[in-house]
């Protein structure tokens, strides 16, 4: 039998040469007359080891990485196809501490299976949730999701079951299920990894949502920056349809669910759900006033379920294993797991799925391995570009929605970006304002104009011009944004700014409380 060798096809792995490595392995094997089967899997999320090549030895999969084209002949010389020792070897993949400590529920298959293999998907528990769902009526599916405690993973953490219930109980000739795959938050990539590495999981979650609320059409609104995910999703939808998991008669249920991927066009604001609906309708991505809620009048005015990729992808497991199984992970009112994304200046950046309640210190040190530069980690931005900067003194606070909110921060979509002590927090605050100005939809004056003023004011503070007066001005600008914005772009842009000022005043030329 041929030996199975895995080389990821995830775009992160591709970005550091996975295709070239795959070709080199195939060529070297052919040259040496070794019979291999090259499998292109998703990424395990151990990005510092990408391209991470795995060999299916009898006892399990062995990891080698990061592999370059130049390493390939030496790997063959070392007999890596039989699990031979090599300096790039890490033993059994599952035993690498970064992976061994995780609680992979949503990511249970990512990196293990070939993304477009329906056989792999089924062999690893795929479609068990949908198969269960077709035996239930809509209300029972919604109840399972409600009971699981699942809250929206796109940022606002609204209970998913409650949203679905509204759509279920709203009459409509047509209803929609829309997946928010805009993943605009910097420092986040879990949606991308899942769509590239286990696309059927998202499809299954959306089909379950369709059955639950009585929607027959779904859309995935995907950011245009994800060309690989786009190709993978389109191919997966075709395969799922051909196999009867989508279409006029979903899994023999007699009920229909169709799915289509639509591309965004490089506007961060289109991740906001009502701007996304406008964009899907072919308009500028301008935020709508709420109410009406999208659950009642959403896409084309019809009742619409909108959820993040991670929210939908958690659903198949909840249906397959029961609400209690999922609910038992986590702490407080934050149930289940969150795929955290470790990025920025870390030795071991990557994906860590853990139950809520883990601390930043554990994520940064135990998983992230500390800073990549070897310098102290000074600040960590949690929750994307609108998230607060967290100083070291808060690294031991458990990651739980309520606890984070109480300290003026947010978990959002789970992005964690670490900065070492060379970071200039005043420049980062300036960047947050600049980003808000660039991406504002223009509907509210504070956000449209105030953010540009904010950039100017921070520039003057950095230059040391009338510092006191400008600091006051910045403070009142932040207040105006906080209170005068229709959505969280303007409403939360002050978070990174204010947290930078509060915790790192010295970077703004302000004496810290404990003077040197």
């Amino acid at each position, binding site marked *: 039998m041929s030996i199975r060798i895995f080389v990821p096809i995830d775009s992160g792995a591709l970005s550091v040469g996975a295709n070239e490595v795959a070709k080199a392995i195939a060529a070297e094997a052919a040259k040496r007359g070794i019979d291999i089967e090259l499998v292109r899997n998703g990424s395990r999320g151990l990005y510092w080891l990408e391209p991470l090549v795995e060999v299916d030895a009898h006892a399990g999969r062995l990891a080698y990485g990061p592999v370059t084209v130049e390493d390939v002949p030496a790997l063959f010389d070392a007999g890596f196809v039989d699990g031979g020792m090599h300096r790039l070897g890490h033993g059994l993949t599952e035993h690498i501490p970064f992976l061994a400590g995780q609680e992979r529920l949503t990511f249970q298959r990512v990196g293990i299976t070939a993304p477009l293999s329906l056989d792999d998907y089924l062999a690893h528990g795929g479609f068990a949730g949908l198969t269960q769902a077709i035996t239930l009526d809509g209300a029972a599916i919604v109840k399972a999701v409600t009971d699981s405690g699942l809250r929206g993973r796109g940022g606002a953490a609204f209970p998913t079951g409650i949203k679905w219930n509204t759509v279920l109980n709203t009459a409509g000739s047509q209803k929609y299920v829309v997946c928010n795959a805009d993943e605009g938050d910097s420092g986040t990539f879990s949606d991308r990894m899942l769509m590239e590495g286990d696309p059927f999981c998202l499809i299954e979650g959306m089909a379950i949502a369709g059955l639950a609320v009585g929607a027959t059409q779904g859309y995935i609104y995907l950011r245009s920056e994800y060309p690989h995910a786009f190709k993978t999703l389109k191919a997966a939808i075709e395969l799922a349809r051909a196999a009867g998991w989508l279409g006029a008669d979903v899994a023999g249920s007699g009920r229909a669910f169709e799915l289509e991927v639509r591309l965004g066009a490089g506007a961060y604001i289109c991740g906001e759900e009502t701007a996304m609906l406008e964009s899907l309708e072919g308009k500028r991505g301008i935020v709508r006033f709420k109410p009406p809620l999208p659950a009642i009048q959403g896409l084309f005015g019809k009742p619409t379920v909108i959820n993040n990729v991670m929210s939908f992808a958690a659903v198949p497991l909840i249906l397959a294993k029961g609400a209690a199984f999922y609910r038992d992970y986590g702490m407080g009112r934050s149930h289940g797991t969150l795929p955290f994304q470790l990025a*920025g200046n870390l030795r071991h950046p990557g994906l860590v799925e853990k139950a809520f309640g883990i601390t930043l210190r554990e994520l940064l040190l135990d998983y992230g391995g500390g800073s990549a530069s070897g310098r102290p980690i000074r600040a960590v931005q949690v929750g994307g570009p609108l998230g607060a900067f967290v100083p070291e003194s808060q690294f031991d606070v458990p990651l739980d929605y309520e606890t984070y909110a109480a300290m003026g921060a947010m978990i959002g979509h789970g992005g964690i*970006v670490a900065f070492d002590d060379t970071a200039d927090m005043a420049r980062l605050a300036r960047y947050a304002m600049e980003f808000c100005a660039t991406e504002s939809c223009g509907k509210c004056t504070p956000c449209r104009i105030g953010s540009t003023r904010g950039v100017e004011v921070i520039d003057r503070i950095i230059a040391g011009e009338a510092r006191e007066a400008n600091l006051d001005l910045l403070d009142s600008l932040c207040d105006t944004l906080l209170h005068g914005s229709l959505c969280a772009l303007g409403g939360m842009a002050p978070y990174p700014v204010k947290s930078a000022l509060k915790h790192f005043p010295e970077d703004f030329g302000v004496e810290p409380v404990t003077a040197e």
Partner: protein
Amino acid sequence: MPQATVTPPPLSDAQHAAIRQAVESHQSLPGALLPILHAIQDALGWVPAEAVPVIAGALNLSRAEVHGVISFYHHFHTAPTGRTVVQVCRAESCQAKGGELLEAHAKTLLGVDWHGTTADGTVTLEPVYCLGNCACSPAIQVGDEILGRMSCARFDAVIAGLREEVAA
């Protein structure tokens, strides 16, 4: 900084045909405008002004509405770009890994500011706010290809490669 001023040339018959084709094959979709614009940009590399009345007619919109949508989205180019669009990520994770240095280096090497096209027409430089490749920061995108762990030296090699392609 010097920037090539590109005056859009008149469209060829093939380009007009590509626009009509993009409109006709997507106009019946609900919310057809973005799919049409993507199809046009995929075919031509940009969205010419000549496309606006064709789209407006097909979708029963005013030209101003179509224009408003095109200009709202960063992704759509309203003028021809260089042969390859190079996007450099400016977002936080890449900043934390030396992205600002890379930005400055890219601008100096290419002799353009953001949105500028090199004098030889090879490259258009664009900023981008996260490519979802933050675990391999700093990241750039070259055409359809995403590249991670980018250094100034590797950036030079990428650009040299693009220039060789043109010379070849």
